[in-house]
């Protein structure tokens, strides 16, 4: 059983409590300096975040007051015109939908890979596969974009035709044979891009499953799959959720790969296979270079919305994890 070798490293020695003196008032100077340093760093971080948010909000306010359209409902982006006329409805839709497609495709695969690496693969194989997955995360996103544009897009006609044939009646998968530079393609590409982070975090979580849980299940006569179902997955659930949220964070902000592959347009199509739509980051990348000052402010305003969406997603993830605390590694 190769699993047993995983936890044979001794647990770290308990950290000795600092200055366990009877008089609580006497604090050593080292502690005081360290406290000041760490508190200072914490405050500095908050200040930097506040400064970024303040900058975004200030620049956004300059152009939002002039905006002729409704910032939330207009299907248009003419921010360099005077008066400007732009809205983020399409961008919200495109960003959220492409990220959800990516998550739906990537998370099951990532969990599968992680389970394979931790519970099924022979050690000789799990090492190299782990490295390859780590390397996937190191590939620059523009390379994914070029690969997607040159290799993935021309080869998707078959898949899109199949989806149209069998699922076309849903309207979501209707396809009228345009080149597949659509939100669904972006979703597939993003899924590949977020695979490493979701896999790695899940793998680490599955490795933390207490040996006792698994051994108890095995002792009760469970098969390996039953062990995974009864002890590994429940224990790792909050870890998987946070892994998925980390992946979602990457997918939401992905820029160059989306900008290279997507054929953007300021419309919302019912079909995910039709070109059109856009994402926040893609729109900023496509418009920033040629924008004048006012256009840039509008793009910054859209960036502020992405900032808020990311905050909300992270908040939601934390709320989910907090509710499932009983399973988390800290209490095991």
């Amino acid at each position, binding site marked *: 059983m190769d699993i047993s*070798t995983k936890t*044979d*490293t001794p647990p770290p020695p308990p950290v000795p409590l600092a200055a366990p003196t009877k008089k609580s008032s006497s604090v050593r100077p080292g502690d005081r300096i360290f406290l000041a340093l760490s508190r200072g760093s914490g405050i500095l971080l908050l200040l930097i975040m506040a400064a970024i948010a303040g900058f975004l909000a200030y620049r956004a306010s300059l152009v939002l007051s002039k905006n002729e359209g409704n910032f939330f409902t207009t299907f248009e*982006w*003419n921010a*360099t*015109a005077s008066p400007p006329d732009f809205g983020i409805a399409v961008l919200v839709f495109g960003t959220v939908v492409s990220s959800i497609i990516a998550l739906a495709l990537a998370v099951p695969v990532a969990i599968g890979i992680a389970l394979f690496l931790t519970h099924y693969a022979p*050690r000789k194989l799990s*090492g190299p596969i782990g*490295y390859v997955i780590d390397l996937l995360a190191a590939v620059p996103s523009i390379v994914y974009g070029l690969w997607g*544009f*040159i290799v993935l*897009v*021309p080869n998707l006609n078959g898949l899109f035709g199949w989806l149209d044939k069998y699922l076309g009646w849903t309207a979501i998968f209707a396809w009228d*044979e*345009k*080149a597949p*530079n659509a939100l669904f393609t972006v979703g597939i590409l993003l899924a590949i891009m977020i695979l490493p982070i979701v896999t790695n975090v899940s793998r680490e979580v599955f490795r933390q499953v207490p040996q006792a849980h698994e051994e108890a299940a095995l002792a009760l006569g469970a098969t390996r799959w039953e062990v995974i179902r009864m002890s590994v997955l429940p224990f790792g659930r909050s870890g998987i959720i946070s892994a998925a949220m980390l992946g979602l964070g990457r997918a939401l902000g992905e820029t160059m790969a989306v*900008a*290279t592959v*997507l*054929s*953007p*347009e300021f*419309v919302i199509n019912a079909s995910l296979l039709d*070109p059109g739509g856009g994402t926040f980051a893609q729109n900023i*990348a*496509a*418009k*920033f*270079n*040629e*924008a*004048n*000052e006012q*256009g840039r402010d509008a793009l910054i305003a859209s960036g502020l919305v992405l900032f808020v969406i990311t905050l909300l997603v992270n908040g939601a993830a934390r709320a989910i994890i907090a509710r499932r605390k009983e399973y988390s590694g800290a209490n095991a």
Partner: protein
Amino acid sequence: MKLQRKNRLRALCIGAVAVSGALALTACGSDDSGTETDPSASAQAEGIECGDAEGQLLASGSSAQKNAIDAWRKNFAAACKVQLNYNPKGSGAGITDFLQGSTAFAGSDSALKDDEIKQSSKVCKDSQAIDLPMVGGPIAVGYNVPGVDNLILDAATLADIFNDKIKTWDDKAIAKLNPGVKLPSTKIQAFHRSDESGTTDNFTKYLKAAAPANWPYEPEKAWQAKGGQAASGSSGLAQAVKQTEGAITYFELSYAGTEVKTVDLKTDAKEPVKATIDNATKAISEAKRVGKGNDYSLELNYKPTAEGAYPITLVTYEIACEKGNKAETLPTTKAFLSYIASEKGQALLKEKGYAPIPAEINTKVREVIKGLS
């Protein structure tokens, strides 16, 4: 414990292989900077007068003229020992940089707008920025229709195709312009730029001017029409046309290469014109000058009647201060601009797939550069 160390060692090995591989690859791509020639000799050969040029020159702007600037920069740096740093970040960004005073000149696909000229008095003390036309180029319309090697279109059909009105290749309007050509019933997939671009601006200017009834949109850097598909950058468009059957798009001629076929344009002249460098220069020579004083912004004639004038062209400008340039960069800026406007400098353009500025405009531009202060 032992096992972990082994893993780490393996990781190191893989890392070492990767790094050494990368090093070997970069070694192959090294520049041909080995050939040092006498600077003064090459300066004379290229007709470059260095004057007091020295140090570093910062510029930014249009990516359309990047290849031209690269070629000029190589000669100029060799002759005058001046490092020119041109960042092809886009015309809009170039003008913004220039108006903030962070660059010596800007490259732009569109002439300065009135409010930009007003703003420029901040950087150009008691004066203003001027447009100097320096590089021209045809915007070719590339298509991918198997079996059709010669395609003739006019402005109205082009506008309808890009406006999603004509949907298949065997449409009557296309067939009428191409008698005897067997057109397939393939769907037309019109591609446009997904990023904002001077090429889009100039292409739609042509559609608006030559076929106003068919093209209801105002020319803009961002694509205005609905329908159609998009790809990023001219190279993205060229790639999209190569890999998509039934596709049609527009890009600077140099991106067509040998693989993409280009449309011949039916103009008011008798014969349809091909998208070539010479034909673009012919069209630019019919341009009207609209700039005042020393500003040489041009308005192209989109309905030429002269034989062989290809009207979908792009003129890119260098933008500098008429007076009040920064003292430290003025000699270098003047030396560089004089070189690129010179006969040798303009001749270099043709090799790189651009069209030179016609002689009568060019000579006047050279006079203006001499007077920069």
